[in-house]
């Protein structure tokens, strides 16, 4: 099943589900004809889209709002925070082309602070599936939950078979590793797999966690890994501030866990606009580049001071 098919299936089973978009139809072209009255396009009007979603939710609907992540989470931020957030309404935000997926669009389209913004809203849940299969596994549970939610949409094809059992607040442990564990989400999951292969060829024991649920975070799994693995790598296509590195740092401080953490994230700048593979290469986020950074870190006991500006 793909994204459109799971949405159709969910909407057919639950007539309260209604899909809304701000004319971002690329990933949902078949929904208008299939879902008829359960599909609404408000045009390029993100604030009105969120306000209307809140109104629909007041009437018992579950609005699934599909729009480009930057404009959804930033143009309409105060509507999300004030209407869906304060109202604690089950508005489900699906943000497209977040992180590196905006490719050559340029900084206007780069949602690399989306997670930081969304997790700052008290009742908001935040999810980041690693690929379309993962998204399809996660969506039913997210749509059924009573909370407002933000999902970083992805249409990347899966390289692995994911655990079909998804629970809100649970990560997917792909592999365990004593030397190094890479904790990641979304687009960079694939690169983490590639980096792990390289590191394993150098006799390292490498674990990988597909985080899936960033808020609530799977603190049990993470706590366990941070006490067992010698080096924790946080890997994300997000600004260093406010994303998973921040979430982990907060968790470790609160739990008084003294782990060695090496963050790989975007350092206070927008990334070079280009096609995805070229972005990964230019910005140093390919599996190879990641493995190289980790090895360098291990050898030099490098502390990532470049993130302190």
């Amino acid at each position, binding site marked *: 099943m793909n994204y459109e098919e799971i949405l159709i299936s969910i909407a057919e089973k639950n007539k309260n589900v209604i899909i809304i978009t701000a004319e971002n139809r690329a990933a949902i072209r078949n929904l208008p004809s299939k879902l008829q009255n359960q599909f609404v396009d*408000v045009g390029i009007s993100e604030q009105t*889209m969120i306000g*209307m979603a809140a109104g629909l939710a007041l009437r018992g609907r579950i609005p699934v709002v599909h729009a480009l992540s930057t404009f959804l989470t930033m143009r309409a931020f105060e509507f999300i925070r*004030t209407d869906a957030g304060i109202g604690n309404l089950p508005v489900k935000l699906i943000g497209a082309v977040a992180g590196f997926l905006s490719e050559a669009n340029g900084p206007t389209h780069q949602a690399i602070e989306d997670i930081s913004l969304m997790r700052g809203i008290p009742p908001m849940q935040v999810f980041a599936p690693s690929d379309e299969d993962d998204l399809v596994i996660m969506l039913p549970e997210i749509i059924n939950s009573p909370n407002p939610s933000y999902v970083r949409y992805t249409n990347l094809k899966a390289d692995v078979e994911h655990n079909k059992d998804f629970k809100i607040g649970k990560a997917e442990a792909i592999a365990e590793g004593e030397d190094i564990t890479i904790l990641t989400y979304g687009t960079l999951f694939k690169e983490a797999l590639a980096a792990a292969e390289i590191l394993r060829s150098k006799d390292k024991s490498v674990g990988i966690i597909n985080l899936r649920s960033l808020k609530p975070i799977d603190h049990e799994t993470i706590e366990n890994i941070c006490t067992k693995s010698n080096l924790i790598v946080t890997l994300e296509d997000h600004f260093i501030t406010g994303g998973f590195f921040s979430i982990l740092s907060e968790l470790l401080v609160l739990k008084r866990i003294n782990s060695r953490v090496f963050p790989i994230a975007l350092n206070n700048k927008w990334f070079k606009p280009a096609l995805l593979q070229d972005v990964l290469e230019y910005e140093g986020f390919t599996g190879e580049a990641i493995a190289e950074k980790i090895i360098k870190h291990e050898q030099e006991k490098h502390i990532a001071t470049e993130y302190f500006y």
Partner: protein
Amino acid sequence: MKNKKSKQELENIALNVREHIIKMATDGGCFIGASLSCADLLVYLYSNFLNVNKSNLKDNNRDYFFLSKGHDVPALYGTFAELGILEKERLKNHLKTNDFIYWHPNVKVPGIEFHSGSLGHLLSVSGGVALDCKLKNQDNKVVVVLGDGECNEGSIWEASLVIAAHKLDNLIAVIDRNHFQANIQTEELIPIEPLDEKFKAFGWNVYSCNGHDFDDMDKTFSSIIQNGKPSVVIADTVRGRGLPSIEARADRWFCNFTHKEIEQLINELHTKEKTNLESETLIVR
């Protein structure tokens, strides 16, 4: 609408609502000017136009009312108290931490459909409610009160386009045209006239009425048609209406009067004898 109240009854209720509002303008104060400008509108809508009352507040078929300019909520609390939706006793909890009655609406107060305070939100929220009623072939009306100053917000015009595009003719926006935004007359700062032509150009039916004349309100609201277009009623009002000493004064937006002044203002409400107000004006809120 069954059992419409007479003009005299409405005027009596409105007088009581104004007393409630004035009593909230002390011990911390409230946005008295805007509350007094929309008081008659709210009394009319809840008494003679909307199908919503204390016994159907959660009914799926009720009419919906949203106060987008949330700072005039004392007028709504007062109306609810007079119509039995909210216990009068609770008005004494204004600004107290033991209740939810503060400067902007909270859904924990009976009758409040949704919170507001941030301007420019509830037109689109009303649009969502109206859309759902339409999709379910229900004939509930959805009424939202906007401020004229609030029409500075781009989201009002964005939502106006979308609501017209989706042919939500079950939605009625009422503009409390009291000619002021916080500190300044609307036409001095960001002129919004011709307001009627703007809404017409956006695809709305446009009506206007005197927002203090119950006969005129009744005539106007009764004439609203559902022709595939949303409707807007531009209600001409006076900020501070009912208290000559603060009427249409730019500096009497948010007021926090002394207890003695409150007594005098209630007297002024009934006698129209101007109070000599010494309390601070232009309070920062």
